[in-house]
């Protein structure tokens, strides 16, 4: 019996180790990002990095200004949300509240297909279809613009937003709906005044995680954003988001050079952004879970 108890304890310990791996991985990622990124600031000012308006790693002297890249990322993400939030929430409400029961599962599966398409395929599609279309529609010299990137990122953010928002809406207790209808509310009034407010925390989480999806996306923006490291003023300009910059330049950066460290510093920024987004989403979820619904 004692042997058995000892065995049980060690098995439990093994499983705990496996579960703790996630924490270890997260710590390792931080360790290596900071370990390879922070040395940049031995030779290059932190403020020059954070507030620098020029990204010119091969210039003499090189300049590693974060702003054009960060703003490029935020700009295309903002554009993506302009498309994805109304469409995604609309579709989520449609699936949760309007779709005939037989159609619901099919629609959810189709939205999942959208999530399964690899990002390089999205990028390729954008390159051969959206970019020429943007170029022709707006009479631009080049079609690789923030708009092209935003359009395809918007589509890529849709499944996150639709699925999570749909979950949140479906999770609203049926009693709320019945009560509202029984009081003479129309179906739309029920949706708008009862179901949507009750699901609001889940819906906000959906939007935030959709933004996270767009901001972290690499391949599509690498292929269609135009890659010009300038602070964006318009959607018809090319931009150079953080992710794409890293992907494009790691291959050329000499290991251990300031450029190499600067790319890891961009990685730190990206990591902190995604961490912030996730913590915000988690906080939203936990805050509302406290409400007795």
């Amino acid at each position: 019996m004692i042997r058995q108890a000892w065995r049980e304890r060690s098995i439990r310990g093994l499983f705990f180790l496996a579960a703790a791996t996630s924490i270890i991985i997260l710590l390792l990622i931080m360790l290596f990002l900071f370990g390879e990124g922070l040395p940049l600031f031995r030779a290059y000012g932190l403020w020059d990095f954070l507030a620098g308006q020029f990204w010119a790693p091969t210039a003499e002297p090189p300049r590693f200004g974060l702003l054009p890249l960060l703003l490029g990322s935020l700009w295309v993400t903002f554009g993506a949300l302009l498309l994805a939030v109304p469409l995604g929430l609309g579709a989520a409400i449609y699936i949760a509240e309007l779709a005939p029961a037989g159609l619901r599962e099919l629609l959810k599966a189709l939205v999942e297909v959208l999530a399964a398409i690899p990002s390089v395929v999205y990028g390729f599609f954008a390159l051969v279809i959206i970019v020429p279309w943007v170029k022709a529609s707006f009479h631009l010299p080049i079609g690789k613009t923030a708009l092209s990137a935003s359009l395809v990122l918007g589509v890529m953010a849709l499944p996150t937003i639709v699925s999570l928002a749909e979950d949140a809406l479906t999770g609203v207790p049926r009693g709320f709906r019945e009560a509202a209808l029984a009081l003479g509310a129309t179906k739309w009034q029920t949706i708008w005044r009862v179901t949507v407010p009750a699901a609001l925390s889940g819906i906000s989480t959906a939007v935030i995680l959709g933004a996270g999806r767009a901001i972290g996306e690499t391949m599509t923006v690498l292929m269609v954003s135009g890659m010009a490291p300038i602070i964006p003023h318009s959607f018809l300009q090319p931009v150079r988001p953080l992710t794409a910059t890293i992907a494009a330049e790691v291959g050329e950066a000499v290991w251990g050079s300031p450029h190499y460290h600067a790319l890891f510093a961009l990685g730190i920024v990206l990591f902190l952004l995604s961490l912030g987004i996730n913590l915000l989403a988690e906080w939203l979820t936990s805050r509302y879970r406290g409400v007795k619904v």
Partner: protein
Amino acid sequence: MPKEMLEPVIVVEDLDFYYGKEQALRGVSLSIPRNKVTAIIGPSGCGKSTFLKTLNRLHELIPGARVKGRVLFNGRDILSREVDPVELRRRIGMVFQKPNPFPKSVFENVAFGLRVNGDVSNLKEKVEQALRRAALWDEVKDKLQRSAFDLSGGQQQRLCIARALAVEPEVLLMDEPCSALDPIATAKIEDLILELKEDYTVIIVTHNMQQAARVSDYTAVFLTGGVMVEFAETKKIFENPANKMVEDYITGKFG
């Protein structure tokens, strides 16, 4: 049918109800008298809650539900396509098994029905009046802006009653309104039901026969298979039922 027929507010004629292929109600006919409390009793699964839901067409939310027959409300068949269920539900209110206040303040819960009907003049007075009629005003008048979830279960259920009363329905449907409540809260709701019949017609589904005996003027007994086997004055049902199966049910031989 009860012998001296009072003026009926709802007349149900030959109502069949199907969930997909399953039949939940078979040829139910009865007349609900105005300003009385009518209890609907029967063993679980006899279709009594289903029956209640057809009276304000809330059964339409259930996928695959179908009805046949007529339900006349003030002489008009509410099952017909021309009748707007939204308008109908304003006039036939409902209280559910479990208290289901919205995740809003006490005040907004009661105001909800008024707001969705665009009836926002004198909102405060109307909310107060509804809360008074639901015998809740004294308990909540100082916490109107607090979340409805801060109330006790019994208070929540009276809040739901107030919410239903605020839109001034003619009929109030109650689907086992005390099944989630303790005896003291139940007694308060029962007192309230007796007061409400001054102004409203109340139809209450209950599995609790004592409750039916305490609060109702008339009682309909449903038995397994969705058949309404007897409808009469409550006193008669409990003391001298005409139907043998009803007698067995009342005396606890089955169900």
